């Protein structure tokens, strides 16, 4: 197992180098570079361009910049933002936990919705309940999260006469857990959980719900479930102790594979709900051509995706003893 993990980590290195190359050189190709952004509406004189580029270290050849940057990253230093000249690490310390927490909450919420519904849907296959659950699941897949978010914000401000929270109201969970959870889950009042994490979670739950249902259907047809019924066990025991446990294994895989979707969704949802996280930062940074910020965020998300894929495979082998990696 240890060998397998090592091998996978080694395989991740070329992937991450590929990502860093793409990100690094593509961000420099965006028309209207950072110098233009700093100058604003005033025309850029050659002297001004030269000075700014020297200040930001952009006067060196691109490949040299790349290796300087990569060397810094290897030491955990992502450089300084081109926008406010602050170290990227400082801002990461505030935005990374926010996005991570929101993603985690969203995944938990999606499981809380999807697992019971998928379970019941499979237990009562082809009943009205089942059809309803399946339609809802496909509906959740089809409803764009940015529309759901827009509608919630619009109607919340109509019905509860409350505006969207501003980033100043946000506090990290270790500073003020109450304000933090209120912002992410209940921004418009208690009893209406329609915060950014919830919208993100609902968007994820459709896929999980469908998988949970098909897995349950498959497990319920297995011999050991029939044996459990034959022993005269109650339905609760058959389902919870024999079926659900095994049906959940592939669900975990899919949850891990949803990490890129959660991260991408956070770009949209954070911009919509004004959450001061990495997604919103990325959106602003692309607009400003803040090369270092874009590079750092894109690389970190790629690391998150690669690690979560690995974690899924390891968890899979751990949970299902039939699976062995060689």
């Amino acid at each position, binding site marked *: 197992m240890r060998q397998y993990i090592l091998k996978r980590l080694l395989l991740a290195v070329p992937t991450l180098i590929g990502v860093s190359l793409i990100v690094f050189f593509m961000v420099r190709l*965006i028309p209207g570079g950072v110098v233009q952004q700093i100058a604003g509406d005033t025309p850029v004189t050659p002297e001004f361009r030269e000075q700014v580029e020297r200040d930001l270290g952009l006067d060196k050849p691109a490949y040299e910049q790349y290796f300087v940057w990569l060397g810094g990253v290897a030491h955990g230093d992502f450089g300084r933002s081109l926008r406010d000249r602050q170290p990227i690490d400082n801002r990461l310390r505030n935005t990374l936990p926010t996005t991570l927490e929101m993603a985690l909450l969203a995944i938990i919420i999606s499981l809380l919705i999807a697992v019971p519904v998928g379970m019941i849907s499979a237990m009562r296959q082809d009943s009205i309940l089942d059809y309803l659950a*399946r339609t809802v699941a496909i509906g959740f*897949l089809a*409803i*764009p999260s940015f*529309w759901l978010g827009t509608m919630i914000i619009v109607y919340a401000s109509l019905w509860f006469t409350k505006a969207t929270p501003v980033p100043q109201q946000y506090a990290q969970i270790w500073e003020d857990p109450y304000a933090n959870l209120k912002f992410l889950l209940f921004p418009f009042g208690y009893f209406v959980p329609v915060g950014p994490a919830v919208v993100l979670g609902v968007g994820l739950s459709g896929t999980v719900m469908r998988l949970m249902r098909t897995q349950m259907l498959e497990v319920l047809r297995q011999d050991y479930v029939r044996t459990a019924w034959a022993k005269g066990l109650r339905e609760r025991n058959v389902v919870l102790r024999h079926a659900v446990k095994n049906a959940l294994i592939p669900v975990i895989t899919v949850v891990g594979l949803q990490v890129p979707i959660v991260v*991408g969704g956070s770009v949209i949802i954070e911009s919509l709900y004004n959450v001061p996280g990495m997604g919103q930062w990325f959106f602003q940074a*692309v607009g400003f051509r803040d090369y270092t910020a874009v590079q750092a965020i*894109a690389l970190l998300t790629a690391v998150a995706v690669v690690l979560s894929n690995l974690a899924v495979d390891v968890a899979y082998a751990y949970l299902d003893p039939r699976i062995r990696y060689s």
Partner: protein
Amino acid sequence: MQQTAAEVPILAQEPITFERPTGTGSVLHNLWRFCRRKPMGAVGGLIVLVMLFAAVFVDAKVFGSSEPLLAPSGYNEQHIRRAEINQGPSLSHPMGTDELGRDIFSRILYGARISAVIGYSSVAIIVVVSLLLGTFSGYFSGWVDTLTQRVIDVILSIPPIVLLIFSLSVFAGRSGPYVRMFWIIVIVGIIVSAQSVRVVRGAAIAVSNNQYIDAAKTIGASNARIILRHILPNVVPVAIVLATVNLGTAILAEAAISFLGYGIPPPFPSWGGMLNLSGSSQFRAEPLQALWPGLAIALSVFGFNMLGDALRDVLDPRLRGSR
């Protein structure tokens, strides 16, 4: 005792008749069977047809009339009398008018055209790329496979939305709406292909392990013949299902990117663009205006997903439950 091939018909006294296997009938009959067995899929198919009809015939003029058949107004036609701005739904404007006095119903119909063009074109790319790369990568395991898979690893480890924002600002940063549309099609096509190649590759590997492939190799069939005659026909059902579901994915991607302001620019009536991030104060005053475009997106994606689900059950039971 051995029989030669020529003897067989003589031994069979009666003319050989084949009974038509159940399930093969006229196209109409098959369609009827599909609708009866998969009602949800049929509903999905109907939604897909309605959207396609709107996209194709939105400005068609019939019987020499000067007015288009479907859309009451042009997508950018303003009704500028004060009373016609920000109207609620009425007989003349079924979904009301927006802040510039444009008929929202007409804009939604024209939006179907944008979504359909982007959806169907990028799916054409997805089908071609995933069939080509998927079968090659699955059949010739080796450096071709390794190389493709590593490239796909890189694409898949960047979240799709992030990659879209990124590449659109590089390739179409200053382009007009039509060039932008082209790039959206290409980029959405490539990103979604990355996932589809994996699925087709898996199917191709499964087919390659069958005995009839070994048999074909033994009798000296060329690689090209094996791929064209044996692998491709078995992989095509997978591609059909992927195409249907990915149509929904592509429409969602375009909507999301236009919502963020990197997609089709105004005044073109992209559904995502009509919901644009900057319009939230407008929607707070007129919430119904945010309802219609979202409904159009959700309904069409819902249709493609339902149809794709039903097709998957009919065409390829092995895929049931994936995604």
